[in-house]
């Protein structure tokens, strides 16, 4: 009985292998647009990305407040600790007009640059927080989550850019990020930045990213919420 079953199975497998048409290959589900499935529109993509960035920013805000509360009681000392963020070399618009003057491509590029610049530092931050005994596991988990979010956000923004390029909204001037863009969070004095400084800088940068994305969305898909 089992022998016959084995033979049948072997035959089937052979048929499957030999028959080219039955070969299963992975393929995207919705390659042909709205014919069968729901393809998220650009507006949807933007919404998702903006939500994601909002979450990321709130996480960074929480962590920063924790730091301030437990490790830096006196406000006066804050100014002294300030060092330049490692992302300050990236030129970012610091006002509404400046941001609106930027082209879509440039704005997108700025966003991507920022996100890229924070990939490694966030990982470092999580590592150092996990090793230090001062932090509870909850904080270090937040840091880890933050790093993951930044990574996903970058992927999402890349998808949005891709979509825009497909739709013709973006020119081809958006260059891919080279490896040289990755920066090390080393301050002017050469010392590695402390956790607090990293958090401070990241809070600001995540706010920038969120803002830029909103501007981009309302410029490109201004139907609702704008």
């Amino acid at each position, binding site marked *: 009985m089992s022998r016959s079953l084995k033979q049948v199975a072997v035959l089937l497998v052979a048929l499957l292998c030999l028959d080219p048409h039955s070969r299963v290959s992975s393929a995207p589900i919705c390659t042909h647009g709205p014919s069968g499935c729901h393809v998220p529109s650009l507006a949807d993509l933007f919404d998702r990305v903006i939500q994601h960035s*909002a979450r990321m*920013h709130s996480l960074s*805000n929480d962590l920063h407040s924790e730091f301030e509360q437990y490790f830096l009681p006196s*406000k006066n000392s*804050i*100014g002294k600790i*300030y060092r*330049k963020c490692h992302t300050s070399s990236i030129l*970012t618009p*610091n*006002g*509404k*007009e400046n*941001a*609106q003057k930027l082209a879509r491509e440039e704005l997108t590029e700025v966003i991507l640059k920022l996100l890229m610049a924070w990939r490694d530092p966030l990982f470092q931050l999580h590592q150092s927080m996990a090793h230090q005994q001062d932090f509870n596991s909850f904080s270090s988990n937040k840091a880890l989550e933050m790093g993951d979010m930044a990574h996903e956000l970058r992927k999402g923004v890349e998808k949005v850019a891709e979509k825009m390029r497909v739709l013709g909204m973006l020119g081809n001037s958006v260059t891919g990020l080279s490896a040289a863009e990755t920066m090390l969070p080393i301050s002017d004095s050469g010392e590695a930045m402390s956790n607090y400084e990293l958090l401070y800088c990241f809070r*600001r940068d995540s*706010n*920038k990213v969120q*803002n830029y994305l*909103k*501007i*981009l*969305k*309302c*410029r490109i898909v*201004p139907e609702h*919420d*704008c």
Partner: protein
Amino acid sequence: MRNSGAVLILTFIAKLILQAAGVSPPGKPRLTSCRSPEKETFTCWWEPGGDGGLPTTYALYYHLENSETVYECPDYRTAGENSCYFNKNDTSLWVNYNITVVASNALGKNISDPVEVDVVYIVQPNTPENVTAVVVHDEQGPFVRVSWEKPRTADTRSGWITLIYQIRVKQEKDEKWEEYDAGMQKYYNVFSLHPDKECMVQVRCKPDHGFWSEWTQTTYVKMPNYIPRERSLWILITIFSIFIVLILTWTLNVKRNSMKLCLLPPVPGPKIKGFDKQLLKSGKTEEIFNTLVIQGFPPTTDYENLLVEYLEVYDNEEQELVLDGKELSEDFMKSKSSSDNDSGRGSCDSRTLLLEKCMDGREGSGSDQHQYSQHGETSWASTESSESQGAEPGSPESTDGRAKTWPVVFPQPHHHYPVGAVKPAYHNVPEILNQLSPHATPSNYHQLHHQDIPQQELRFSKSACRHSQSYNQFNLDSIDTPAPGVPPLPSLEYVEVQRVNPENMLLLRPLSDPNREPERSDCTGEDYSKVKVVTSHNILLLQRDTSHQCVDDYSQADQCTTQQPPHPCKPAVHQWNSVMPQEGMRVMGNGYVDSTVLMPSF
């Protein structure tokens, strides 16, 4: 050294003089807050620390982070007194401003503490505008629709700033405001407002990271007077009540019969045995009443008294008889109590009675015994007579072959008593036994049996060695047999249970039998009562047996130890088996209990 010292002293003196004059350098100013209404400009306010009596000027200086260039406030006027307004050109986001205020007068100056400000985090928008509240009439009832507009300065269109709104509502005479979050939309419907009351509405907004704006001015709206029709509630109540009614109806239907019984209990019809309704309907009253007549009822004798009497009377006589019995076999005297007096003994000890009682002892059901004893008519052979071989618990006297007598009233012969008295069938024993009268023929069998008797037959065998046996069998249930009439019972005689034969038959023997001779092995002239069966209540029902055999059927030959050898069986040691045949009652022929007088005493 001397000069500095002199300078110091002079300064000190000057201060003193100035203080006496009431003037001093300005107090330290303090920056109270900085706010940006639209994330494009911002304003900082400070409070002076005291002018020191002299006109004081204030100057605000700031520098950006990581830059040493100090700038002064560009606009002191736009925002009012003691404020500094930073316009769009001067405002940079995501950059820390380090701001200080310097107060200076003729005597000196004072510098406030520095404040770090990042404009992005100090956004507080203006209040929403054009708040309108309108009453909308709906099927469900009227509600209020509140709508507003964004503050003019906030630029939400370009996505630069995102605002979320909140409204609060209060009806007149309420103490607390009800707050509702409206999200990013610019309208809101307020329900559950009370009719005919004035309603106050306020709105405010907040950016995603920032401070809440102030509440708008109150907007008033008056609710109309309407009666809330809570239709859904009534529908629910109706359905629920219908459901309950249905359940009740169904329950009543199911329990219809018991309800009838409860409400209208049936009137019990006449239930008289032997009473023929048809006869009544036909109207022949005489016949009806004739059927009701019980011959010989009511009993005119008091059996209990009789019993007592007999106990007393037969005391001595029985003694002799007992002795007779004893001669027959030694086994007779296994009785625990040698006294003949009944007093102080258990019922099983009583010679007169209670066959059932002792039988119950075997069977373990004592309740019936008590029942039995209550009637007093335990004029059955004592259980001892029926007890089986060997000492058994509950049989205080294991008498073998000892005939017991019980008081029996001997009525006229051939009395038949209606079975109507079922349980109290034994009531009638005396009557029945009355039939025995001395002129009862030896072959006079009166059979007593209960209609409901299980098919056991109790036979108490009497050995042939027992002599005169009279078989008394009484037939209780034959109403048909005409009773020759029930004379008053003049004499009451006792019938002794001579023994219990294996066939579970009580062999009775009238005490007054002149023919009675304990040792006679003659079958004739002895009266035996054959017990047909012992009912569940341990009532011995004597059986009317037409056939009369005594000697030949005794199969218990081995048991008899009589001195009468020709007799196949041995009488004396009659081990009184238990009444229940399962216990190995030996049946001796017809198994009649010899009712010879062996009762020791009553």
